[in-house]
């Protein structure tokens, strides 16, 4: 497949959706998520530090309608195979806000981007942001009982946006 045609739906999978993830703080949450991408062969070990450093420099938490989310990402050089990992934390942790780093947001839902195809990040992020702008969808994801449920919600939503 041409990398220019890489779609969001090709990057999500049930095995990369986690619920009840335990973390005491932002760093632990990000480390756990990044390490899972490393362990499954999607990212190089350097991805973990890349994610943590980027989050410190450029916080990724956003107050979406009804829910706070975070969209951590880092440079393509740390990635072997593109993927988007989703985690719902057992209890929310404080992330610094993208819009105002002096402010923190209690985040329970995180979408971590690991992209090798740099040129696609804008489109893929736009797709996810569009999905997350709908409070009803975030409610469904927040309340879903298992990873499969979250996968189905995400897949059906992104398929509507990525026609063809």
């Amino acid at each position, binding site marked *: 497949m041409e990398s220019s045609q890489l779609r969001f739906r090709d990057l999500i999978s049930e095995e990369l959706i986690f619920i009840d993830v335990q973390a005491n703080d932002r760093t632990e949450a990000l480390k756990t998520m990044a390490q899972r991408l490393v362990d499954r062969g999607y990212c190089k070990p350097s991805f973990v530090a890349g994610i943590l450093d*980027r989050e410190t*420099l*450029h*916080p990724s938490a*956003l*107050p*979406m*309608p009804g829910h706070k989310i975070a*969209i951590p*990402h880092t*440079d393509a050089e740390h990635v072997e195979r593109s993927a988007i990992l989703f985690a719902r934390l057992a209890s929310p942790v404080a992330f610094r*806000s*993208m*819009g*105002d*780093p002096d402010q923190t947001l209690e985040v329970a839902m995180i979408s971590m*981007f690991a992209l090798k195809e*740099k*040129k696609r*990040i*804008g*489109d893929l*992020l*736009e797709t996810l*942001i569009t999905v997350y*702008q709908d409070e009803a969808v975030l409610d469904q994801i927040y309340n879903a009982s298992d990873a499969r449920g979250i996968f189905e919600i995400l897949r059906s939503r992104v398929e509507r946006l990525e026609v063809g």
Partner: protein
Amino acid sequence: MAGKKRILVACGTAIATSTVVARKIEEELAKRDIDIMTTQCKASEVPSKAEGHDLIVTTTFVSGTGDIPVIHTVSFLTGMGIEQDIEKIVEHLKD
């Protein structure tokens, strides 16, 4: 009006959230028949790329912006507060 106004759009990577923001600004200003040009850059590149732009819109903290007005906002990502930010942008672009 004296030529196209230029907006520098910054984020951490120059290719992620700034892409979403630049597209949204172009779309919203086109609706208002305001012809602009956007350039994307990394927050760290702002000091070297700011010159020649009329406005900087960023999703993350930037410094070294000189006299150029800066709007730090995530409204184009959250979908909330877009109208107010577009009004601010339009105001800044007036001669």
